């Protein structure tokens, strides 16, 4: 368990501002935030590489705020893996064992087997691919059986195909070794897939903590909403409210949304582009909006197509190229933009 209490620290261009956070044992906890939000600084503070200006850090109930890193008893893997270039893979892995005076040949071969690096033991780090380096770095960090693993952007240096298997590997390690994992990233997809809980950090401040569902469906403010991909922001007024189903007026357009608000409230409605489907026919229902409009712009983005639609309000939809071709989507074409009331997130 990691407890962080009112942690503040300035360093170069980064600053953390009175941050409190509690990470439970066994959790896979992801800290998500844009580049420059101070995420790595927070991780380095927890590992003890810097001392905070104020605040406390407790690991398993014991205060370690001003202890040197070797007393923090956690494993740390940097984004670039930081393997020692002058040592073979084997020596790299043994380094932690030598420092902690653990003498066990079995540990080394066991962790090498787990991480599928047995064939790499005599190689040197600079000759390894990114994915191999990461597995070696994990082996080096895990060979001494730490309880807590800190990961600094563990996937961002990998190519997309290796990322998939690395995600799988991290999930497996977390489950099989019953590790507490603290993983930082700027990639919302990564956070969504991996996390038990997510904390959003922006400009050195903790903005929201919650399960992936809470974060991605119910962002607490518009800054978080736009960071987690609600690209459509509609300003409107509630004209009826009935057991969580709201009718909202935005300009001349009306749509349904689920949420809590009073009649007359001015609200912001957030809607993800991928939650808008396009159709040639209307299919209005009590839980599904279907707004008539006209395509204004079309951008092909690989397998996806971004379509801008004018339905009185301007919407931004993301659909597959297949369906865009099936419907002959191009500027000027009339379409219905459809989205569920439950896809709309309401903030007052």
């Amino acid at each position, binding site marked *: 368990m990691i407890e962080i209490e009112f942690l503040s620290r300035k360093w170069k261009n980064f600053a953390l501002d009175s941050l409190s956070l509690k990470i439970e044992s066994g959790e896979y906890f992801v800290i998500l935030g844009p580049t420059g939000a101070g995420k790595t600084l927070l991780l*380095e503070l927890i*590992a*003890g*590489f810097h001392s905070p200006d104020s605040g406390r850090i407790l690991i398993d109930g014991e205060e370690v705020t001003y202890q*040197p*890193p*070797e007393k*923090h008893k*956690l*494993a*740390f893997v*940097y984004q*670039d893996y*930081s393997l*020692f*270039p*002058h040592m073979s893979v084997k020596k790299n892995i043994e*380094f*932690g064992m030598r*420092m*902690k005076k653990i003498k066990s040949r079995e540990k080394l071969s066991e962790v090498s087997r787990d991480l599928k690096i047995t064939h790499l033991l005599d190689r040197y780090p600079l000759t390894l691919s990114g994915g191999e380096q990461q597995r070696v770095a994990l082996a*080096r*960090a895990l060979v*001494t059986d730490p309880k807590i693993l800190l990961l600094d952007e563990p996937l961002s240096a990998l190519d997309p195909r290796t990322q998939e298997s690395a995600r799988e590997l991290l999930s497996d390690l977390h489950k099989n070794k019953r590790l507490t994992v603290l993983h930082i990233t700027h990639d919302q997809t990564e956070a969504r897939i991996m996390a038990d809980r997510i904390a959003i950090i922006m400009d050195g401040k903790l903005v929201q903590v919650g399960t992936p569902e809470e974060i991605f469906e119910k962002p607490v403010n518009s800054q978080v909403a736009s960071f987690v991909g609600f690209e459509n922001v509609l300003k409107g007024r509630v004209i009826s409210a009935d057991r969580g189903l709201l009718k909202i007026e935005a300009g001349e357009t009306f749509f349904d949304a689920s949420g809590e608000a009073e009649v007359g409230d001015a609200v912001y409605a957030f809607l993800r582009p991928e939650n808008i489907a396009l159709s040639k026919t209307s299919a209005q229902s009590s839980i599904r909006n279907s707004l008539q409009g006209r395509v204004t712009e079309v951008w092909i983005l690989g397998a996806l197509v971004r379509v801008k639609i004018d339905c009185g309000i301007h919407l931004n939809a993301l659909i597959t190229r297949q369906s865009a071709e099936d419907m002959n989507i191009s500027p000027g074409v009339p379409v219905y933009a459809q989205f569920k009331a439950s896809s709309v997130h309401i903030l007052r």
Partner: protein
Amino acid sequence: PLTFVFSLLLLVLFLFIFLTLSNMIFGQILEDFPGLVKAAGNRSVMAAILFSLYAGFLATLLSLFLGAPAGYILARFDFPGKRLVESIIDVPVVVPHTVAGIALLTVFGSRGLIGGPLEPYIQFRDALPGIVVAMLFVSLPYLANSAREGFKSVDPRLENAARSLGAPLWKVFFFITLPLSARHLLIGSVMTWARAISEFGAVVIIAYYPMIGPTLIYDRFISYGLSASRPIAVLLILVTLSIFLIIR
């Protein structure tokens, strides 16, 4: 056209340095080879040359002992006045050599700040310790700077990784930082040694005797003229350059 003119100027620069040295060396070998052999057989000449190498070696060792830790602190920590400290460490590079000699003599001479109290135990003037101190003074900045660059080139994240694996700071230094900056330290040591054995101005003021190579060359030049000092100069440069070639 620009490239041609510039290449020509490079050639001039190259020839200036190359001809100056090779003219002396080959002139000696072709015109007066017996003189070179005689100089090489002369005990006091060889003693002076070896004495140069030895004193330079001692100065380099001391530089390593002082300069490497200093470079580590300068590479890893920020503190108020750091820029001033770095500037002061660089000053010996620009101090005129005889000025350095005078300054060292005021401090290490028999009535000096350090030389005075130490007089009963160790003598600097006209003795090996003085020569080493003079060499140390002019060559220390080279070692401190290349040590600092070497330590800076080691990613602090490697040190952090080692610490989180359970290594205390001193083990991190000896197992991670030092091996990874070994090349810089080696090159720095070679430069320091080269600077030490090339020094004349500072050494000659604090210790004319016992003579190091450069002093002997000067002494012969003043007493007997160019033809008497040239064979020693050729010998000294041949010894020096061949040691460099071996180290590289």
